[in-house]
């Protein structure tokens, strides 16, 4: 059994609890041992260096040091948390001055960081530590006949010098996972583009047009459902879908799953275990299809 320090990030503990629940459900089924990190703080939502660069280093250096103290790598379920922790890790490993400054702070709270921790997003933890073949073996429902549009988002792909999970120009991890579960991956141009979340409270029109156009393109390619590995993308794509439809003046009605929910459904999770009642766009149609696909 593989063990990770589990860093769910803020949204999965607040408005997106269904993601946290689905993650714990699949981790249990797949033999991933998740150690909670109750001391870990928010990573800064991808914008904290715009306030103070050293604050980003200190609070995230602390999170990395907490995992290192327990001899664990960190598993994330949010793209932005993944990039922020990876950026800080990279800076502390490669810049002795930043490491020294951060360790001076960490020493005052009884911690030390030496750069041993790896940060991995759940998509790639499932690929590398469980394996898609084993995932297929464990599935009790097939996603056969369901057109699934993967929406990678930005921060598990870019910048590829920092997050090195997949081929940034033509990533395949998500598609391979969907195929392993029997689903049909939908190929569309905006699968690696931005959902706009970072400006949703700053310039809603910019933000929602990005999300809206991604959903529209996937719909036009006959997607039954879209899946995202990031709770921030999920807010843009699902919670704001009605606003996004108005923004691009198109009819949108595409259910949006969190990645662990997609895996959870294949592993036998039901409607309430996956928290589907919390979604804006109904998932009843998808669940009706899955129910017929007993393996």
């Amino acid at each position, binding site marked *: 059994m593989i063990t990770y320090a589990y860093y769910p990030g*803020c*949204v999965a*503990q*607040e*408005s*997106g609890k*269904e993601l946290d629940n689905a993650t714990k459900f699949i981790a249990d089924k797949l033999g991933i041992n998740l150690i909670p990190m*109750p*001391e*870990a*703080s*928010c990573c*800064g*939502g991808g*914008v*904290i*260096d*715009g*306030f*103070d*660069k050293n*604050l980003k280093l*200190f*609070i995230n250096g*602390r999170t990395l040091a907490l995992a290192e103290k327990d001899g664990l790598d960190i598993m994330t379920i949010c793209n932005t948390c993944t*990039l922020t922790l990876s950026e800080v890790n990279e800076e502390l490993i490669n810049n002795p001055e930043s490491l020294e400054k951060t360790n001076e*702070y960490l020493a*005052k*709270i009884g911690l030390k960081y030496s750069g041993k921790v790896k940060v991995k997003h759940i998509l790639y933890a499932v690929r590398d530590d469980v394996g898609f073949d084993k995932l297929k073996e464990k599935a009790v429902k097939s996603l056969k006949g369901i057109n699934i549009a993967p929406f990678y988002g*930005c921060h598990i792909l*870019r*910048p*590829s010098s920092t997050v090195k999970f997949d*081929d940034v*120009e*033509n990533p395949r991890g998500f598609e391979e996972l969907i195929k392993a579960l029997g689903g049909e991956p939908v190929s569309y*141009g905006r699968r690696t*583009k*931005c959902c*706009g*979340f*970072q*400006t949703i*409270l*700053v*310039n*809603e*029109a*910019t*933000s929602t*047009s*990005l999300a809206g156009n991604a959903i529209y393109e996937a719909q036009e390619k006959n997607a039954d459902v879209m899946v995202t590995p990031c709770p921030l993308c999920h807010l843009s794509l699902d*919670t*704001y879908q*009605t*606003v996004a439809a108005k923004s691009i003046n198109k009819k949108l009605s595409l259910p949006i799953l969190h990645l662990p929910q997609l895996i959870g459904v294949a592993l036998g999770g039901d409607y309430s275990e996956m928290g589907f*009642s*919390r*979604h*804006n766009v109904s998932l009843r149609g998808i669940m009706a299809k899955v129910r017929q696909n007993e393996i």
Partner: protein
Amino acid sequence: MEFKVRAYRFNPEIDEKPYYKEYTVEDYPGMTVLNALIKVKSELDGTLSFRRSCRSAICGSCAMKINGISKLACKTQVSPEIEKFGIINVEPLANMPVVRDLIVDQESFFDKIKEIKPYLLGQREDEAHNHFHVLKEGEKISQPVYYRPEFQNLTGNNDTPNCILCECCYSECGGVVGNPRYLGPAALAKLYRYSEDPRDNDKNGSRLVNGSKPDGMWDCVHCQSCEEFCPKGISPVKSIVKLHERTIKNSITFSAGSKHVVSIAKSIGETGRLDEIKVAFDSGGISGLINDLPMAFGAGLKGKIPPLRLKLIKDMDDIRLAYKELDLEEK
């Protein structure tokens, strides 16, 4: 080895709509996409139009979409593209209107570069070297400003001056896709570069104030595409984030974007967590809240509502100490 070039074609004077045309080209070791296009133009179809000049990744003329990604044709080799995609699919850069085939109208891009005033403002009174004059006999040339420690110690300016204005970042920018008026990565990286220059005499902080207006620095969506796809290894997004930090440290916080960042920092300093409700309120104010009310109400009905009062993280004093150590408590 033979391979296919699939080129976007559009001549607005003749064509009703764009179309693609395929050409078969013979590869040779080290062949670039630009080599292939020149071969097509000289041997197969003289009507194919594209910009090119230096062939050395210096002039930035031959930027285009190659297999969906904005790249310099002269810097992109054919064989790895064929290995990955099986074809050379060439299209014009995005976010700008097409003039013909692979040539785009660059006016909007350069208008935005001009808008940030890409030159030193005013003149510092203590900069005697700026007064050009004929050297008197025996007079030595004063040390150029570039060799002064204050210039060399500039943070973040190691890369921005290397920009060749090729527009790859602009073509890939999520912010420009969502808002065509957004200044974009190249212009904002230049804005940061000038705002940091010790020779610049921007007495009233006009660069940071103007850059904070709508369609400016706070419209960056942080998609990281500008850094990822810059053929010169520049990271405009990192310059934009430094611009954010500089703006907030100078108390220029009238924009929703700066309020958003300050609110997140405040929320972490108080609870260790991101308070979704408070950050939404602080960023958009009452009008933002009213605007989002139907969406929030819908989410609330589904139970998708964040807690009104957040539980502090364990060992919250650690985080408070970080703020104290960095002297950020008052901000």
